[in-house]
């Protein structure tokens, strides 16, 4: 039997959060952490978490698994269990709504701040805008972000300044548009980021890189933005 400890908090019932212990029979199978949560929810329907695609592309089920942020649906027990114990907590640093469900408003607000959409005021051609495979390759490792918030909620700089520091996820997306040959708003985008907090609160701790379930590298993208900012200032 696997020992599972889960963060519980129902604002209508609990004066404060607590850890609840469960025992789960996994029949020795290396199932995913989400499978364990689903199994427990059949026994205790009050257990609350988000989930949708169950294959690591929708970004719903980011949680803190035995101390490390990740997606419950693609984290197998073999990676998450230590000493026959699995500990599941909400992603850290953002307010908890209930159990493993956090309030992601601040995370989304930072995403919206970077103008996460193509800006190109030139008249559009009758077909697609052309882009070479080399230009398109610059978007690889950027556009795949699923907004799960595993990175930003693992970032001490984001914990300190969630209202002012864009955070790794938002900055990865900022660079996704800066790097796109079809976008013409480079100057405007850089001007929006040019303050002591938005980008420069990144101290290269690289927790984001360590936890990203899609294997993306926000720190590298932030480095590119820094260089662009420095270049545009000189």
């Amino acid at each position: 039997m696997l020992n599972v400890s889960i963060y519980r908090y129902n604002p209508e019932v609990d004066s404060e959060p607590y850890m609840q212990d469960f025992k789960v029979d996994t029949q020795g199978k290396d199932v995913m952490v989400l499978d364990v949560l689903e199994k427990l929810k059949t026994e205790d329907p009050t257990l609350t978490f988000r989930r949708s695609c169950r294959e690591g592309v929708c970004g719903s089920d980011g949680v803190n698994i035995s101390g490390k942020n990740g997606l419950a649906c693609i984290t197998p027990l073999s990676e998450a269990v230590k000493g026959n114990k699995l500990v599941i907590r909400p992603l850290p640093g953002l307010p908890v709504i209930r159990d493993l469900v956090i309030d992601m408003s601040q995370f989304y607000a930072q995403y919206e701040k970077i103008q996460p959409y193509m800006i190109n005021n030139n008249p559009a051609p009758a077909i697609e805008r052309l882009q070479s495979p080399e230009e398109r390759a610059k978007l690889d490792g950027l556009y795949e972000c699923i907004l799960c918030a595993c990175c930003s909620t693992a970032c001490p700089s984001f914990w300190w300044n969630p209202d002012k520091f864009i955070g790794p996820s938002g900055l990865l997306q900022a660079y996704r548009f800066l790097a796109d040959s079809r976008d013409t708003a480079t100057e405007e985008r850089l001007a929006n980021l040019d303050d002591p907090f938005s980008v420069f609160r990144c101290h290269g701790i690289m927790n984001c890189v360590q936890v990203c379930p899609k294997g993306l590298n926000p720190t590298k993208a932030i480095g590119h933005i820094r260089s662009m900012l420095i270049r545009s200032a000189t």
Partner: protein
Amino acid sequence: MANIKTMSFDAVIVGGGGSGMRAALQLAQSGYKTAVITKVFPTRSHTVSAQGGITCAIASDDPNDQWQWHMYDTIKGSDYIGDQEAIEYMCQTGPEAIFELEHMGLPFSRTEEGRIYQRPFGGQSKDFGNGGQAARTCAAADRTGHALLHTLYQGNLKNETTFLNEWYAVDIVKNADNAVVGVVAINIETGETVYVKSKATVFATGGAGRIYASTTNAHICTGDGVGMALRAGFPVQDIEMWQFHPTGIHGAGTLVTEGCRGEGGYLINKDGERFMERYAPNAKDLAGRDVVARSMVLEILEGRGCGPDGDHVYLKLDHLGEDTLNAKLPGILELSRTFAHADPVKEPIPVVPTCHYMMGGIPTNVDGQALTIDKDGNDQVIEGFYACGEAACVSVHGANRLGGNSLLDLVVFGRASGMFIEKQLREGINLKEASEADIEAAMVGLNRINNSAGGEKASVLRAELQTIMQNYFGVFRRGDFMKEGIDKLNALRPRIENVALEDKSNAFNTARIEALELQNLFATAEATAIAAEGRTESRGAHAREDFQERDDENWLCHSVYFPESKTLGKRGVNFTLKTREAFEPKIRTY
């Protein structure tokens, strides 16, 4: 007593997937007050899981490609019960809709010429089936749905659409004229119930693959739109037509794109034989999905399945080489390693046909207006009510959808619905206000769940429902067996209506949502079962052992399921093309 909070909009879209956000974008751009009600944050919608691409004759791979060839393929793929007018509209308008997405920033893969990369998909041909395999599916690696959904969300942010994220639509509000004037919805975070009033209500609620035990669909695909429409007394069309995707990962159910076979992968049985050569000598592994799925099941039933239980076959990709796989199918490598514990670079992926797509749904015209059928058999527009995407049956997929056509459907008809509603709003929409009794009528189901005392757990009932559908209404179907399945559903109905909800709390109560979703799953499953038993022929995805032939004399038509009488009617298929003479039904071979 209906002292319920009301919010008013010009247009409300229920569902934040591809079709819903495309419709919302159109309306938000025109300045109308538009809201999207979505039970998950928009980029968590199931469109995100689409992999291989969006099929459209943009003439990149082949400069001489024609949308008419795509139209022919789609009509043939539908086994001739797709509405030709709708298919013509989709294939002709498609390129414009794709270029709009590209201009919005969708990161398509590219050719050396800088154009959008297109790959071959099943059922595609040049020159009306005479010119060999076409490559017509526009792709962003194997993450096209993700790229498309994020691009649409970004477009909506730019145009300041109102998002009611993590709100759940419970039921339709109808006025005294039987017109739709909004929905009752729950704010999941607070539990507050609100009447969301609207001049136009668009259902973009997606599919219901979760009626089956084994599905590629996300947990959220619970047929909410179909359930709500049926409870409001509106019919659904061709709901017996469920696509089983040939390549779901054995055991996990997760999708492996048809693009794998488009890029040169193929299926093998336990003897290592490329068996599709026997079933579809020309198209082989790129025959229609229904054809490939049935061939796989036959291989398994005849003892040539793989694995210790002989219950799956293999998808072989290693011969394509690591570089190609990394460039073209990176997401598949990830999924296979995670869920099949197989590295496609070195070994084949164990796959099995898995429930994937609902071809049927709420009948609509090409403008997205939802239809009902009057007692003389004529189409009647339901005022105020629209549907698009998988929830709708417009019908471009008929009895079998071609790969890559779902994304095109949702973009083209999300857009068409938006444009038509925009025009209606400009001309002025006057619908009677809902009375208190009208609003209360939409609260009945919710109140019953909220007042539940006793009953069984939603998870247990859901699993039973899924098992019945899997066993009695799968790839191959038989009348006596389906009757047994219907009896089992009848026995399950009162238990599902009486589902337990012990937790009555308000804050993010997912148990309440699951109890409500279960009602929609059941409604969709029941309609599927009755329609499947009623269609006494084999056509497209609907394969009956007791009626093995296509019966054009009696069934070259849509089925229409009426919820109040639980009976099946028929509706004519549209054979009127604007640009040429119609395509007459032919024997369908690949």
